[in-house]
């Protein structure tokens, strides 16, 4: 299916489920439906691939180190807490 034949209704139905597909959260029938569709529909295949890459990139977003001054201040604040925490 090329972009001129792009069947918006079916594409939109599957488009809603692409994240669940990537997360392996769909039932087998829906998965097969998506797999069949993306083999035939280039725009949806591109959509799935770019979405997958976005998720992969997001997972690489990384962490900053904790500033030393803050880390020290945090420990001091905890040290100053009463040592018998309330029950609830």
């Amino acid at each position: 299916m090329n972009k001129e034949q792009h069947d918006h209704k079916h594409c939109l139905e599957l488009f809603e489920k692409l994240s669940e597909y990537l997360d392996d959260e769909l039932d087998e029938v829906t998965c097969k439906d998506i797999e069949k569709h993306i083999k035939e529909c280039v725009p949806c295949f591109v959509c799935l691939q770019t979405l997958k890459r976005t998720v992969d990139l997001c997972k690489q977003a990384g962490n900053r180190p904790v500033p030393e001054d803050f880390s020290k201040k945090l420990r001091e604040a905890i040290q100053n807490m009463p040592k018998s925490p309330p029950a609830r």
Partner: protein
Amino acid sequence: MTVPRKANRNGIKDKDFELVRAINSGHFDRFEDLVKRYEQKLYNFSLRMCRNAADAEDAVQETFLNVFRYLKGFRYETKFKNWLYRVAASTCLKKRRKSKFAPERELSLDEFFLQDEAEIPDQVPKWALMPLQKLLNDELLDKINEAIFTLPEKYRLVIVLRDIEGFSTAETAQILNLSDANVKVRLHRARLFLRDRLKGYFENE
């Protein structure tokens, strides 16, 4: 060799339970181990939610102090980490400030679904095909983090918990007190929003 953790009577295996029990039985010095274990994670979670370092530091401190205060009330009915992030998320939400960079708004599927034939791609772009490690660099990581900052808060919370912190749909729903379906809807829209930002970045590169 790793020793398999035994599930508690609620069927939950959690590496933190032993430490939490030790603190709750009076070994307050072990709280430092809890801080060491989660300080960096909570700092980065709070930075992503508060957007500003001073607010993030306040949020982390308040989170740990609240955990210290209320740890005795922890019921071992969920993983400790999930409980911790529930405290952290609610602390960050209290600190929220209005931002012109990420105005609160609903993201609708329609805005991400290309209907204009001229815009519909006919091939997978290079950035989605080349090996991830070849693509990654500091500038791109900055762009990803900037794009996350510009997401409206309710979508940002979900994508940060799911795709960065690695919580499952069910855990995220529990932390944020949402239904699984709601988490899935927000996550999908958040990902589509980021995808559009990345697409824009690569097209203008």
